[in-house]
């Protein structure tokens, strides 16, 4: 073959390949709606879907398909949903591209966007008051049933008119949190003694096979069966140190800490009589900047003292490779640490590797935030924490964009209203019931995942209890069976998620104190005007960056409290933190989040 024929053949091959590609890929499409008109086909951007282990496209979600079988709205029209789901890890880029290029879908999952009112102001959303009032009786009733719902879901203008700018998710009770401080209670039983009688503690598993069957007679210095004060924690740390010495665990510590030395939402640092190290409101609803106040200084002094005693993780500010809250998860999982901020999955005996290592016989229990009773001036002592990541009753939801303006919003709204009814809320929260699964036999998802009896059942207490298949699932089946991307009501009160006892007990500890001080991301800041919001966010980002860079130095002793604290305060003052507090004060007064 001459070179010329070779090249001609190659060119022909290239053309054939390109044409072939066009044909091949034009046949690979998305799931298309059958029963809907273009008017009732909605593109819905969701922040995240379900693990592609179960299905590639969220539209294949059995709960979505079940709810779309019937018609909606006054004319009972068929609706089709086309879900746009960004690849995991590029959600924010995807959102940015969508927003900045103006290539908007019909509905936006309100996870990373700005508050609905601002979205409408900026032209990414539309006001839907008329449709809500006409087509969403369940939503309107719910919103008016509770002031917290109302405050977060409805904007009231100067004339007293109600405006709906988006749909907000509602919850009928405070939600479960999945993480918090936890400690090795088995070490306390083994190495501690009763603080009043001096007697050894007894305790252990009643059933070696059950990771939650722990019983003991531990009493803390403050008198209760759970740690409550900083002094209780220090008592524990002494026991942990003894345990580590006895077991030969070297170079380890009692407690891990987030890497900059504080948690952005408060937590431990609000146990010292203040709130967060940025802006918070006190019991009298007065806004403070906490970063240069006595409570924050006391917190740092306490952490410094713990650091000096070797109780704190000496590398807390250098943990760069652990993905789980930046704590030292390797040591935690090897059973070398006494206390850490961990996940629900680490509670009870779940970390026991049964290999004769340090995890042998481990029992992990959740601890509430400790009230300061030892450090700083009187004003910083014995004040319950006020800025904690607790549950919130509202959050998320959807925003309807201008793209959908000419579509059949009546049908859409009446469809979405379904998820604010008990029946729809169950589908949203848990998934399909046994009857619904039987009724929907053309879809085999439930049957093939061992859920022929539905995702839940009604137990002896009359509560909705999650199917055991879902409770013991090690993957993400839980998110695959229900339509939890829908805006709607999340059922908490009447639902038994099948959590183990240890988790329920830990949950009580973690939720012991309600959040009364931290207003960032609540209605208070959502109601801010664009200009105010930008001013505050800019300064906030700068202040947090400064703190993140320098805060750990106080804890590790590189900065000293006599000399450098004044400098710290001066730098923060330069950011005009007081004037920002005044802006926040206005919104705290006018739009309280509680």
């Amino acid at each position: 073959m001459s070179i010329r024929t070779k090249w001609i053949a190659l060119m022909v091959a290239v053309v054939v390949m390109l044409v072939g590609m066009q044909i091949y890929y034009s046949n690979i499409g998305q799931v298309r709606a059958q029963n809907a008109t273009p008017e009732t086909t909605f593109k819905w951007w969701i922040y995240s879907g379900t693990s592609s282990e179960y299905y590639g496209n969220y539209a294949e979600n059995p709960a979505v398909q079940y709810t779309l079988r019937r018609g909606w709205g006054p004319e009972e029209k068929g609706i089709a949903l086309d879900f746009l789901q960004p690849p995991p890890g590029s959600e924010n880029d995807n959102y940015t591209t969508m927003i900045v290029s103006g290539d908007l879908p019909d509905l936006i999952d309100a996870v990373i966007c700005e508050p609905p009112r601002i979205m409408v102001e900026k032209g990414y959303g539309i006001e839907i008051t008329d449709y809500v009032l006409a087509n969403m009786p369940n939503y309107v009733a719910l919103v008016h049933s509770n002031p917290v719902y109302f405050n977060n879901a409805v904007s009231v203008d100067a004339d007293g008119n109600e405006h709906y700018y988006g749909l907000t998710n509602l919850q009928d009770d405070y939600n479960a949190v999945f993480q918090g401080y936890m400690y090795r209670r088995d070490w306390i039983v083994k190495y501690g003694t009763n603080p009043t009688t001096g007697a050894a503690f007894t305790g252990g598993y009643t059933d070696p096979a059950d990771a939650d069957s722990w019983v003991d007679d531990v009493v803390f210095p403050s008198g209760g069966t759970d740690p409550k004060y900083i002094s209780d924690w220090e008592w524990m740390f002494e026991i942990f140190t003894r345990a580590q010495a006895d077991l030969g665990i070297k170079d380890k510590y009692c407690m891990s800490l987030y890497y900059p030395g504080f948690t952005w939402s408060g937590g431990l640092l609000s146990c010292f009589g203040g709130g967060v190290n940025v802006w918070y409101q006190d019991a009298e609803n007065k806004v403070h900047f906490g970063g240069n106040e006595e409570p924050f200084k006391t917190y740092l002094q306490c952490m410094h003292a713990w650091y000096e005693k070797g109780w704190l993780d000496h590398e807390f500010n250098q943990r760069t490779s652990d993905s789980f809250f930046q704590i030292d998860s390797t040591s935690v999982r090897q059973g070398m640490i006494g206390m850490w901020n961990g996940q629900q999955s680490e509670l009870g005996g779940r970390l026991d590797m049964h290999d004769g290592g340090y995890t042998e016989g481990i029992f992990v229990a959740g601890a509430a935030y400790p009230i300061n009773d030892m450090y700083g001036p009187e004003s910083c002592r014995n004040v319950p924490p006020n800025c904690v990541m607790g549950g919130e009753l509202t959050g998320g939801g959807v925003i309807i964009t201008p793209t959908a303006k000419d579509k059949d919003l009546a049908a859409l709204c009446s469809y979405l209203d379904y998820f604010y009814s008990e029946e729809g809320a169950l589908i949203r929260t848990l998934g399909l019931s046994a009857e619904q699964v039987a009724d929907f036999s053309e879809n085999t998802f439930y049957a093939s995942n061992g859920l022929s009896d539905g995702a839940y059942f009604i137990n002896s207490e009359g509560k909705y209890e999650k199917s055991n298949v879902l409770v013991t699932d090690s993957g993400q089946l839980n998110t695959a069976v229900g339509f939890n991307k829908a805006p709607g009501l999340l059922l908490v009160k009447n639902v038994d998620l099948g959590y183990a006892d240890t988790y329920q007990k830990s949950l009580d500890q973690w939720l012991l104190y309600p959040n009364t001080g931290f207003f960032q991301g609540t209605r208070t800041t959502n109601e801010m005007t664009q200009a105010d919001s930008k001013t505050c966010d800019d300064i906030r980002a700068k202040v947090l960056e400064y703190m993140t860079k320098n805060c750990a130095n106080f804890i590790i002793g590189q900065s000293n409290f006599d000399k450098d604290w004044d400098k710290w305060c001066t730098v923060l003052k330069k950011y005009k933190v007081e004037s920002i507090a005044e802006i926040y004060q206005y919104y705290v007064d006018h739009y309280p989040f509680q």
Partner: protein
Amino acid sequence: MAKKNAYDLAASSRRSWKTELRRDWVVYLLFVPIIVYEIVLHYLPMFGIVMAFEDYNVVDGYFHSPWVGLKHFVDLFSGEDFPQAIGNTVIIGVMRATIGFVAPIIFALILSLINSKKFKRTAQTMSYMPNFVAAVIVCSLFKQFLDKDGPLTLFLTNVFGAENQNWFANNHPPAFWIIYLLMGIWQSIGWGSIMYVAAISQVSGDLHEAAALDGATRLQRLFKITLPSIMPMILMMFVINVGTALAAGYDNILLLYKPHTYNVADTVYTYTYRQAFGEGNTNYSLSAASGLFQSLVSTILLVGSNALSRKAAGSSLF
């Protein structure tokens, strides 16, 4: 005469467009694809640069957002940490444009000294491997390896007696700079050398032969024959490298730095990224302004290094 005209390199400028097109219409046709490609995919999107001079918002779009002139540049340059970011960028950029640039060349030269074909091939193939791994993964691997209990840290501690530490958390210069440089070299030394290896293999064997007969040792031949013959390519790559040194390759730092290492790791790219895409206050205009600033500096560097190369070696990229 005709022959001379055909290959006189300045001939085209003396002819009119009409004659040119009639003579060489095929060549002009060959320009069409790239011109279309560049205009559509590179030049049309450049309207985005106007963002740098306005307070961009989506409703008003690119052409109706309020014009603010140089405000974003002023914001950028007056930032408190900007000088530090510039300093780190220059240090890291210079390290990469020198040591990082020379490493693959040295590797290619050393490879040329190897006689065993089998060994050479195996070593080459092995050295390409890091290039096949995505940058995100490389970063997480390095983080793992240099963590306090990472294999590399333990190696450094046990063999060289270095302090046991998380190396990425070390904010004393020049630890971070060296690690970042080595990471780049690890990733690119094999792959970057391909081009030079290809060029070296083209060096005429006759030259080596003649030199060997004159009694030149292998090392002498390396410096007298091999190196000069790939010099034009080295210079071309150098000019391009310097031109892109400021603009490219800093995104990985986002995955590697922490607030307390900002003093050594913060670069113009990461600094702008934080300013523009930080918490809740996405500022596309600032990011565009920073991009434009980096482009301008790169242009100066590129033109400068090109002139330098022309002056020093008589060959230049353009």
